[in-house]
């Protein structure tokens, strides 16, 4: 593995949350190189794990402008070509307002406020549910 690949993986830690569900938190500034790295990492991991859902958490993104929104749309399209649905979580009130002011239509992209909402949505679509243990 070369250094570039190593840095790419360190900067974009993608996790397996459950069978078929991946999660990638995005923190800081998103420029075109970062967006490309995120897309590479996601697609590689989708291929490796054959996951059906990937949750991209954008809560930690410094600024969501039209370029960042454009990247999000492209990443979502690429993952869906691989048969994996992207759920964008971490749409804070600020990000939501910003998207409205920008006039960005995320179209069919599924978005949620919290990571937990995205995760439960993915579990629901997979026919899974979390059940409270009776004994405890």
């Amino acid at each position, binding site marked *: 593995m070369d250094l570039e690949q190593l840095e790419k993986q360190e900067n974009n830690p993608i996790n397996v949350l459950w069978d078929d569900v991946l999660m990638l938190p995005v923190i800081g500034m998103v*420029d075109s190189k970062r967006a490309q790295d995120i897309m590479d990492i996601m697609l590689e991991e989708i291929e490796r794990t054959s996951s059906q859902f990937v949750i991209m958490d954008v809560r930690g993104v410094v600024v969501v*402008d039209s370029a960042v929104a454009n990247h999000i749309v492209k990443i979502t399209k690429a993952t869906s070509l691989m048969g994996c649905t992207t759920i964008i979580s971490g749409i804070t009130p*600020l990000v939501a*307002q*910003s998207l409205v*002011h*920008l*006039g960005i239509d995320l179209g069919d992209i599924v978005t949620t406020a919290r990571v937990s909402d995205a995760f439960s949505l993915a579990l629901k679509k997979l026919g899974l549910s979390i059940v409270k243990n009776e004994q405890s």
Partner: protein
Amino acid sequence: MSAIRADSPRPYFNLSINNEQDVGHAVREARSEAYLAGFDKPNIFKLCTIVAELCRNMLYHAGGGEFVIRHIHSGNRSGIEIEALDHGPGIADISMAMQDHFSTRGTLGIGLPAVKRLSDEMHIESEPGKGTVVKALKWL
């Protein structure tokens, strides 16, 4: 455009935008200036979005440019003015560029109209072949 005057105070912060790292730097500076000026969180976020849009525009269309943040005082009002100045190809038709979903580059085409919606006042001057100056102002 009475508030954007030729005798604006001296630049508080200026930066050459030559690559995407500079855009990140500009956004962070704008955020701290907006915070110091007393803006609330939603408006700090809006200012950062304006800065990112304008700086990326300069980068994509003109290969780079100059970015300036000024603190503005007019009567009992104060605010922050963002200026983006480039020596690129200029905008042939400003009214077209201000329309939603108009793009010469196959992008979303929402940058400039979004800046107008996010700011309180906005002013564009452009001369084809010479360059473009965009000023966006937000009152406290």
